[in-house]
């Protein structure tokens, strides 16, 4: 019976990896190889970073059985707050960045508290939040796009030096291979595979210019969130709440505290994503972040997160974000008309979930 559970998981992983390979193969052929160049893959990783940062948090929100529609607008707002703090208020960069994170967490906590304590559906609270944040963003920028200084922009553009990249990757791989596996921990084979993946990724990124800073940030955030999801009491409680809210309550889990907590984390991530977004685009604009919440939700869902709650993984969401970014990037390289991108993205979204549902059925 446990084999069935695992088969369900790997079925999803396999279909997704297969779909990604097909997409890549098509683009590889269509672009005469450019798509798979080290340079473009590094670019792909950068282009997926903002959506993926949000998707990583969105997984936990959806696993809890909630939704957050405000993440795009909140990211835009927080990026602008950090920019204004450095440019107009003259704050030091670190303080400005911290202010975006703290404000994000506070806004997330506020939304989460309304959801958890006052029992207003999260769809409504965050839809309202989205409008409020959009309006606030327009208000504080006055419609003017504001460019932050060079140090700020480096967050979006800089690369980790090749030597430093190898050092980090080597240390991680060594830790995976040398630290003895615990009885219930990841099996040895999976550790070797993970170590190999880290080294291969580093080699690929170093083949161009090194690991881009936003990508390094994304990897760190994803690792942290995956750990939160799987190895903290808070994370496991989120899965329990999403799986059966009543049973979680009857087991002594505080729904209020944990729901508020997951929205706070999501807000924090919006701060990170907003800063990276602003640093990448080069200025804070009044439209920033628009519709990004939908990309983040789509990435999480393509990556196997169930909108009913209780099921989903951080790494799946990364894969989902990669699929979406690949479509954007590949079609842009091919210079296709812009209307094809939403059509294809929508089709893939439905197809991914349909394949998952179909793959699950015989197991029942």
């Amino acid at each position: 019976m446990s084999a069935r559970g695992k088969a369900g998981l790997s079925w999803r992983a396999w279909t997704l990896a297969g779909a990604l390979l097909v997409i890549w193969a098509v683009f590889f052929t269509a672009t005469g190889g450019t798509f798979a160049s080290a340079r473009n893959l590094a670019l792909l990783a950068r282009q997926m970073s903002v959506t993926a940062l949000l998707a990583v948090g969105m997984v936990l929100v959806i696993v809890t059985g909630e939704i957050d529609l405000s993440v795009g607008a909140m990211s835009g707002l927080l990026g602008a707050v950090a920019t204004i703090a450095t440019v107009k208020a003259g704050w030091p960069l670190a303080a400005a960045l911290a202010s975006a994170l703290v404000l994000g967490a506070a806004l997330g906590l506020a939304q989460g508290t309304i959801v958890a304590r006052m029992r207003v559906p999260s769809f409504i609270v965050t839809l309202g939040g989205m409008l409020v944040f959009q309006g606030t963003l327009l208000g504080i920028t006055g419609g003017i796009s504001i460019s932050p200084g060079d140090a700020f922009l480096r967050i979006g553009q800089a690369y980790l030096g090749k030597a430093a990249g190898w050092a980090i990757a080597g240390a991680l791989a060594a830790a995976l291979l040398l630290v003895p596996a615990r009885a219930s921990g990841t099996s040895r084979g999976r550790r070797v595979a993970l170590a190999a993946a880290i080294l291969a990724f580093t080699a690929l990124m170093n083949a161009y210019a090194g690991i881009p800073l936003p990508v390094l940030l994304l990897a760190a955030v994803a690792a942290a969130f995956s750990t939160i999801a799987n190895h903290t009491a808070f994370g496991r409680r989120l899965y329990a709440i999403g799986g059966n809210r009543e049973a979680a309550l009857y087991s002594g889990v505080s729904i209020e505290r944990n729901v508020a907590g997951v929205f706070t984390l999501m807000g924090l991530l919006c701060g990170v994503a907003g800063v990276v977004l602003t640093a990448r685009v080069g200025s804070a604009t009044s439209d920033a972040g628009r519709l990004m919440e939908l990309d983040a939700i789509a990435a999480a869902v393509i990556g196997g997160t169930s909108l009913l709650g209780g099921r989903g993984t951080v790494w799946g969401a990364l894969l989902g974000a990669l699929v979406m970014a690949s479509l954007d990037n590949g079609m842009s390289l091919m210079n296709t008309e812009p209307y094809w991108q939403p059509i294809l993205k929508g089709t893939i979204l439905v197809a991914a979930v349909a394949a998952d549902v179909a793959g699950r059925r015989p197991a029942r």
Partner: protein
Amino acid sequence: MALLELRGITKDFPGVRALDAVDLDLEPGQIHALCGENGAGKSTLIRILSGYYPGGTSEGTIRLRGEVVRFAGIAEAERRGVAVIAQELALVPDLSVAENLMLGREPVRRGFIQWDRLRAAARDALARVGADFDVDRPVRSLGVGQQQLVEIARALDKRADILVLDEPTASLGERDAQRLLGLLRGLAAKNVAAIYVSHRLEEVFAIADRITVLRDGRAVASAPAGDWTPARVVAAMVGRPVSTMYPRPDPPRGAESFSVEGWRVADPDRPGRFALDGVSFSVRAGEILGIGGLMGSGRTALLASLFGAARARVSGTLRVAGRERRAPFRAPSEAIASGVALVSEDRKRYGLVPGASVLENLTLPTLRSFVRGVLLDDDARAEAARRPVEALSIRTPSLAARVADLSGGTQQKVVIGKWLLAKPRILLLDEPTRGIDVGGKAEIHEIICRLASEGAAIVLVSSDLPELLALSRRVIVLKQGRPAAHLEGPSATPEALVAAATGSA
């Protein structure tokens, strides 16, 4: 000629043969009881018979009135006169009784529903099962027993002559159960046959013409009811004779562990009135206190309110381990922190996270105790989870198995197991053996006695009178939210309990 003839029914699931060449006959007007432990194949057989598993997905033949049939789905089975009254009722709670009765068959003219004809047809259908409640009431407002009558009325109205009833009395009080059995006997006299699945052997012997026992997917014995005795049925079900059904717990010797005084719970549906009022009792460490009463008498509301899970205003004095609390628990987390645990009557809804693993479910209430620094110690967690698995012999392939894939009895053990890890001093048990087979029941009875002998104070709610009277030396009987009797020692007999609960004394 038999009304229904099953021959060589075989059904495989990946890695498991759920049914192995099962034969079964049903005569017109016959009540045929199907007995077996959970996992014996009863539900699978019912699902094949009802078209839930369409024809062709299993082997063997089904003959209906001599004609070989292969049902494409539930709708076709119903059309041919086979109707299932499932454990989970298939009614739409917010539609009226009349709409539910006529759902999909509403009398319509020019696209508009003809409400007069609909109501009249619904009243006729209800009359056939001897019920006469208002057909405009939403189904949600009916009791479980009444809802079941609506389902049976609907099946009969669709001209069903074979009713398949899966644990129909599991959630009924004594009186509703008796009424249902009477109804089935009356229908049998009118040539409506029934396949009756139940764990309650008294019922089976009271009603069945023929009894077939399933074990491990095989029909191990089938004979007229007169040829069976309860002991032989149980022996056939478990494959061995079961001598004593109920262990007797040791007499309690501990000090008072838990007491309530003047307990009062508001009725959320009727402002100004109380679902429970004037309830007082105390339990000593090692004691099992029984709570009896009919469905809806306030038993479940009592346990939920003690646990801090009531959705209504609660007042009264609560003493835990001799210390008086300032107020009732406001949330289950508070109750748990004080060493109180609740095994709910509805384990699917309140007890388990069905999509999560055995490990997750077992350790959910005690997660905090496995935190080292900020992270969970997965090794310690798995090791802790193995303890209840062994102690309760929870039959699961691994700790990673989803609880939704386990049998009902095993699921219930998981619910009890998660509280074992929390080491509660006070254990509230609400229908702990409902829907569980005989073997599983006996095991759970033993566990309850063992926990008591280890010093836990236990409050037990059960509709199973022999179980309740055997396990608890003292029983408080509730009637409409008020204490109606306090039975102890020789006065604690089934007759006295029923009399107090129904007010016929």
